[in-house]
């Protein structure tokens, strides 16, 4: 820690910049709800061929996760599709 850091409070311009970065992450990753619904239905259709899904307990969303590799060191995040799909039973029809 630098000597002056003891005395220096974070400036309001730094606060503004940090807040902006945070809010833009969620603004940029926001997906149109209609498209999200279509993604969800498509995933259900594909999976339904092989397994029986609990459609009530289904949870699909876009979130931010820590970036990997080189970007990780910079502390940046990337959007990721998070899906929690409970399976009622595996189909045995092959």
């Amino acid at each position: 820690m630098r000597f002056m850091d003891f005395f220096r409070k974070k400036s309001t311009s730094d606060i503004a910049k940090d807040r902006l970065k945070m809010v833009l992450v969620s603004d940029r990753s926001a997906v149109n709800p209609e498209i999200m619904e279509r993604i969800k239905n498509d995933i259900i259709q594909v999976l339904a061929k092989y397994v029986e899904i609990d459609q009530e307990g289904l949870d699909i969303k876009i979130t931010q996760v820590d970036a990997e590799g080189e970007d990780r060191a910079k502390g940046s995040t990337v959007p990721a599709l998070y899906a929690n799909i409970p399976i009622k039973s595996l189909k045995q029809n092959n």
Partner: protein
Amino acid sequence: MAEVIVVTSGKGGVGKTTTTANLGTGLAKLDKKVVLVDTDIGLRNLDVVLGLENRIVYNLVDVVDGNCKITQALIKDKKVDGLYLLPAAQTRDKDAVTPEQMKTLVDELRKDFDYIILDCPAGIEQGFKNAIAAADRALVVTTPEVSAVRDADRIIGLLEANEIKNSRLIVNRLNIDMVKHGNMMTAEDVVEVLSIDLIGVVPYDEKIVVSTNTGTPLAGDDTLVGQSYMNICHRLMGEDVPFLNLEAKKGFFARISDLFKG
């Protein structure tokens, strides 16, 4: 080859109209033939900023509706040669024009002008869609405030989605004193957050208010603001102009504290 530039921002009140008026004035002073199109139908203002409000006979909607010829609606600026205004209609709403009609209108103007600058309304609705439909490139205006920068980010996303390339950022109303005290983001901060190339920084100056009071844009005069606008004009023409040094010399205490930062 005519170039069609849309001046846009998302948020209202950040200086789109003032920027449009000054860039038009600047480019005309550089011997370009320029037409400024006010696309803010229902809330026209470019006419008063240019001091041309008393000369309006026909407007953009009259041209689109076929009530007059384009040349009848164009108003010649009284101070600068080569500068023209196509005013918006004041008593209609944004739906009076479609993106296709705007494109046809602008293509007609391309034949006679070097630069066509479209002053875009605030927001992301019909008026914005009309304005960007006809544009080759965009200038995104923001002030160094969180609300304006956030809206600018949204606009940049929409411009990309509409395949408008070559968008550039203008950081407007930068208050140098506030930046020095750490109470306002710098132009570099804004660029870092938005990841878009900067084409100009315009310092905050009360003279802008005075200039709109009288309807006389400042571009090309000897004020810092006038110079910043002129520099943007040169950069629009493809010239490489260094950015003005807006940072005044550091004060005594700032230099002392620099010593301790090591």
